[in-house]
């Protein structure tokens, strides 16, 4: 177990290094940000001065090494645009995104898992078809369209929820719906197939024929096993949700990292973009690490299967 943990940690470190290389290299394709930071009347010397000040004239490998050595200490420099430490800026906006992502994920789970289970119980019936198509529609709608429609219907016409911003519990609902809709299909499908597998198992059949109420049977025995692939998928869904959060945050004026990232990319704010991707990637890796640990706890066979390779 310990050896497994050590291996996973080492893998994670390599992954993060790879991320840093990609992010660094990518951004240096985007061109020169100095023009954006200076007023219209700036002369060539001002531009040159700024470039040296920001260290953009040094060879790439030097810039990368400098970047990496500072990054591991948490120093991503000052955001060009906001002139405050990049990491601090991200950490202050991260909670908002995490809250939204969790809300979206929770909503997706709360809706999709029962739907999937229901579909499995009534397999191949009309209900099954309706459920499948229902959640698939959620996945088929572009998230920003869904968001705008939600605002129109529930905020403007019905007035049940606020249209934008983060202002108390009610303001979470619409963005979480928009965000979570995409994941619902995947989760429902997994819940359904996991449930189907388990239902076919002998011990479940036995329990059912023994007269225990079907309801109790499914929830007690089946859910545990259906949960296993679900737990794994949560880790991956998190990454997808973060992607969707970028757009959702823009529509709903949510003060999170997604909006910060869009802004940073458009204004070529190198340090901020690097820091954002680094933080999000680290988060993703950590979450998946945690998920893996939970997974092995649920089903220790995995460790042996893997170590046998």
């Amino acid at each position, binding site marked *: 177990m310990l050896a497994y943990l050590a291996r996973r940690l080492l893998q994670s470190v390599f992954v993060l290094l790879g991320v840093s290389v990609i992010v660094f290299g990518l*951004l240096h*394709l*985007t061109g020169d940000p100095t023009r954006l930071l200076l007023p219209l009347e700036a002369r060539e010397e001002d531009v040159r001065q700024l470039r040296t000040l920001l260290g953009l004239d040094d060879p790439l490998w030097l810039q990368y090494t400098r970047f990496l050595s500072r990054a591991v200490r948490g120093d991503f420099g000052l955001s060009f645009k906001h002139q405050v430490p990049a990491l601090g800026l991200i950490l202050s906006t991260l909670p908002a995104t995490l809250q939204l992502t969790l809300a979206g994920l929770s909503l997706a789970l709360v809706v999709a898992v029962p739907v999937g289970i229901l579909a499995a119980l009534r397999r191949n019936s009309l209900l099954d078809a309706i459920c499948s*198509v229902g959640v698939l529609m959620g996945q*088929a709608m572009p998230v920003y369209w869904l968001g705008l429609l939600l605002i*129109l219907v529930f905020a403007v016409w019905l007035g049940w929820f606020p249209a934008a911003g983060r202002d108390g519990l009610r303001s979470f609902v619409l963005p979480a719906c928009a965000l979570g809709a995409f994941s619902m299909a995947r989760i429902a499908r997994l819940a359904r197939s996991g449930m189907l597998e388990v239902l*076919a198992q002998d011990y479940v059949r036995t329990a059912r024929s023994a007269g225990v109420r079907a309801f109790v049977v499914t929830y007690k025995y089946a859910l545990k096993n259906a949960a296993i692939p679900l737990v794994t998928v949560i880790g991956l869904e998190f990454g997808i949700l973060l992607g969707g959060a970028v757009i959702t945050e823009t529509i709903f004026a949510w003060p999170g990292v997604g909006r910060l990232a869009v802004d940073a*990319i458009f204004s070529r704010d190198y340090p901020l973009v690097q820091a954002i991707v680094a933080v999000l990637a680290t988060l993703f890796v950590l979450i998946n690490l945690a998920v893996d640990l939970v997974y092995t706890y649920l089903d220790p066979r995995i460790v042996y299967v*893997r170590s046998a390779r």
Partner: protein
Amino acid sequence: MTEAVAVGAARPAIARTRRRRVSFRAVFGITVLLAIGASALLAPRLAPWDPARQMLLKRLRPPAWEARGLREHPLGTDHLGRDILSRILHGGRISLLVGLSAVALAAGLGVTLGLCAGFFGGRTDAIIMRIVDVFLAIPYILLAMGVVFALGPSLLNVILVMGATRWVQFARIVRADVLSIREREFVTGARARGNRSGRLLLRHVLPNALTPIIVVATLELAFMIIYESALSFLGLGVQPPTPTWGWMLSDGRNYIATAWWLATFPGLAIMLTVLAVNLLGDWLRDTLDPRLKI
């Protein structure tokens, strides 16, 4: 992380007790796709107007069945007086073109890397899997934005970027399949007989891995269509005046309450296409390889 998903809990064999009957999903999916594909191909013939033609005097006309609607514009006009139906038909071409090309690229990349990883194992496998993890860790949309930004938004760049960020799914699934196939007798046997790896890969391994590839490709196509529209929404997609569904949605987003037809029809088009593709993919998966956990 990647290994866990692929290997998964032990796969119990499911008795295939399903009755043979025509699946609604397959029929629906294929029909819709054929319809969309046909209209996309025949767009220049079918479209009543030039999609880029602005008729400023006829801007924001509702669909023909409404009071202010016009017969010659069945789905209405947008804020520059362009015919919505024509734009949808032409937009379908782009959306499908981008989607299919990007999937092809992603599949090409992913399958190759997955095959190498699964077949050669060891160090190659480890390196490729780490690269996969790296791509998974970076939020795809930020990656896409960054790249399109750097290279400039154009049809080619959008396809490249989408293909380069989504190959991961293919790699993982192919690798998993290759790993399990590798263990089988006939491959070990063939190797013992001294067949070269390359031929082995192509003749024995690849055909067996084909089914998951098809399933993933179908599901990824759906994702690509939405992905492209998201990039357009952010202003980074294929540029005007080429109409794409994503741009139409983006154009129409400010008119949702007043001129609902600007955004609704492209939105429905996207939804319908993606739904059809997803249903098809689902059916393919259920028929070909229900154990796939994707």
